[in-house]
């Protein structure tokens, strides 16, 4: 068990391509941190630097109280779950789980005990003698998890471990990963581009964009108070509406961008805002309304039974409004 701390970590590839810049992050022992961002934002590179699969160009990475910058992956006391699972195809499930323990000279009886225990935890007991190719996608995912668990490492690193599963399985594995991590109390660093996964799993989120940290915070902090228009537009499905203040007269100083969540608008016949409805999407429990406010696109969420006409009169509570600087994209406090 250990925390992980990153101090001004950066990655520059030869040819001066910068992938990651100045990342500061303190992961508490036992915390579940999710790195989230669009593809190419540097989240995987960051994770791979922590794992030791990429060299660290700038800054220092500590796992526990050891600086691990120049340490081999094997010596960092971490376990990693890969996107494609990276199971050894020529070994049985048992051997896949035992491989890391054998390499470390763990006594035989101890290996058997740990593998059995890990397999029981993940419901893999009936499959221990099978080869990975004889398993379903979900089972392979569990084997990959099992390989990390039996090692009993200081930290788990997850590199988009659920993105090869179908939507239903993904949701259930998500919950399972969360429960397992809670139970084991092991620090976890988890990379995903899926903001729902990020919201549901994380103790704290790190939103990355273009190799830089946009915001670090609990899922609700990030959701309610995005630090920038990028975060506002990335987190949440549908994302926060961002409109120039000119389109929403009276709601904020001119020359700012005003943001509000789709579920925060209220239908109010006396409201000052008019939404011209373009399309309605039924989600079952809710309706998604796409339309325009003074010509600017906006999306709103209402309960399923809401009556929708050609246009809607709306009001937005002042507490739900967020303001951003149009030049920098950063949030304006207050």
């Amino acid at each position, binding site marked *: 068990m250990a925390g992980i701390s990153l101090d001004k970590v950066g990655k520059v590839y030869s040819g001066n391509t910068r992938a990651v810049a100045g990342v500061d992050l303190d992961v508490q022992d036992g915390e579940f941190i999710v790195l989230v961002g669009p593809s190419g934002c540097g989240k995987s590179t960051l994770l791979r630097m922590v794992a030791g*699969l990429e060299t660290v160009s700038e800054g220092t990475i500590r796992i526990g109280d050891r600086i691990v910058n120049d340490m081999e*992956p*094997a010596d960092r006391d971490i376990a990693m779950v890969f996107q494609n699972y*990276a199971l*050894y195809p*020529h070994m049985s499930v048992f051997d896949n789980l035992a*491989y*890391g323990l054998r390499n470390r000279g763990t006594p035989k009886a101890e290996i058997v005990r740990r593998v059995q225990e890990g397999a029981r935890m993940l419901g893999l007991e009936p499959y221990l003698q099978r080869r990975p190719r004889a398993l379903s996608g979900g089972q392979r995912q569990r084997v990959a998890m099992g390989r990390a668990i039996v090692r009993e490492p200081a930290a788990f690193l997850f590199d988009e471990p659920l993105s090869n599963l179908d939507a239903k399985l993904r949701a259930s594995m998500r919950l399972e990963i969360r429960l397992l991590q809670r139970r084991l109390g092991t620090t976890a660093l988890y990379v995903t581009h899926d903001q729902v996964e990020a919201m549901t799993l994380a103790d704290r989120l790190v939103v990355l964009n273009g190799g830089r940290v946009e915001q670090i915070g609990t899922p609700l902090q990030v959701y309610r108070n995005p630090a920038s228009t990028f975060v506002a537009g990335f987190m949440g499905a549908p994302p926060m509406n961002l409109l120039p203040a000119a389109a929403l007269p009276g709601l904020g100083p001119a020359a700012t961008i005003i943001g509000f969540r789709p579920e925060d608008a209220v239908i109010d016949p006396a409201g000052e805002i008019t939404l011209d409805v373009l399309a309605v999407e039924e989600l079952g429990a809710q309706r998604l309304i796409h339309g325009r406010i003074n010509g600017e696109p906006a999306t709103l969420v209402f309960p399923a039974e809401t009556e929708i006409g050609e246009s809607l009169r709306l009001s937005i509570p002042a507490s739900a409004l967020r303001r951003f600087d149009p030049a920098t994209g950063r949030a304006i406090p207050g």
Partner: protein
Amino acid sequence: MKRSLFQHRLLPWVLLAPQLAITLVFFLWPAAQAIRQSFLREDAFGLSTTFVGLHNYSELWRSAEYLNSLKVTAVFAISTTVLAMGVALVLAACVDRLVRSQRAYTTLLVWPYAVAPAVAGILWWFIFNPTVGVLPHVLDRLGYDWNHLLNSRDAMILVVLAGAWSRISYCFLFFLAGLQSIPQSLTEAAAIDGAGPFKRFWSITLPLLSPTTFFLMVVNIVYAMFESFGVIHATTSGGPAQSTNILVYKVWYDGFIGQNLGSSAAQSVILMLIVTALTVVQFRYIERRVAY
């Protein structure tokens, strides 16, 4: 079925004809001739032929020369295969680690494959020539008296080197392709799992290459046994004292130089049986483990 496409009954046969003709003329007919010939005995002037049954075959098993040739062939085939594959694997593993210069090295390493065996043989002949060659000169300085014209072991080393050289390119290509088809994340997972570079190669890479390795092994052995005529002919001509006279060379020598057509035919029939057996083994085995 799509019979309408082939309304003309003759068309399929016409389309197949070139391939069939080639197989018939260059393979089936000579093979049949060889089998027929192997039961016959011809006099020195080709004026009379007598049917001798299995005499040609039984003579072979009594001939010390033939048994020696079998042994030489085995040594040659196995050494060439091991050497070519070993070197190719090391080179492929090295090239696989490169990022930008990979293409340049691959091209250079594949070049020897484009050199005809006889040309390669001549090349080696010059390099190793005891009188004018570069290598014997260097070896002489080191105190080793190289002479493959007198020393059977030197001769064997020469033909193995010459035979393996061009095969290295071939094996290299297959090994490189095999290595590149192994996902990088497997090696990374093994690194995190605490396996050092050699352990990783031994316990992850090699087992995953095994279908490639097996394929190359069979192909190389067959190649060494049947297609290394040019190499032998250009370097040692089977000598000294039969020490590099492999089966395929002996077939040619006994038939075309010695004019002992019956025996030569019997030898080529045995060769055919060996290649058939090897091919069967290859397909049986590879089919079972083509993928994990």
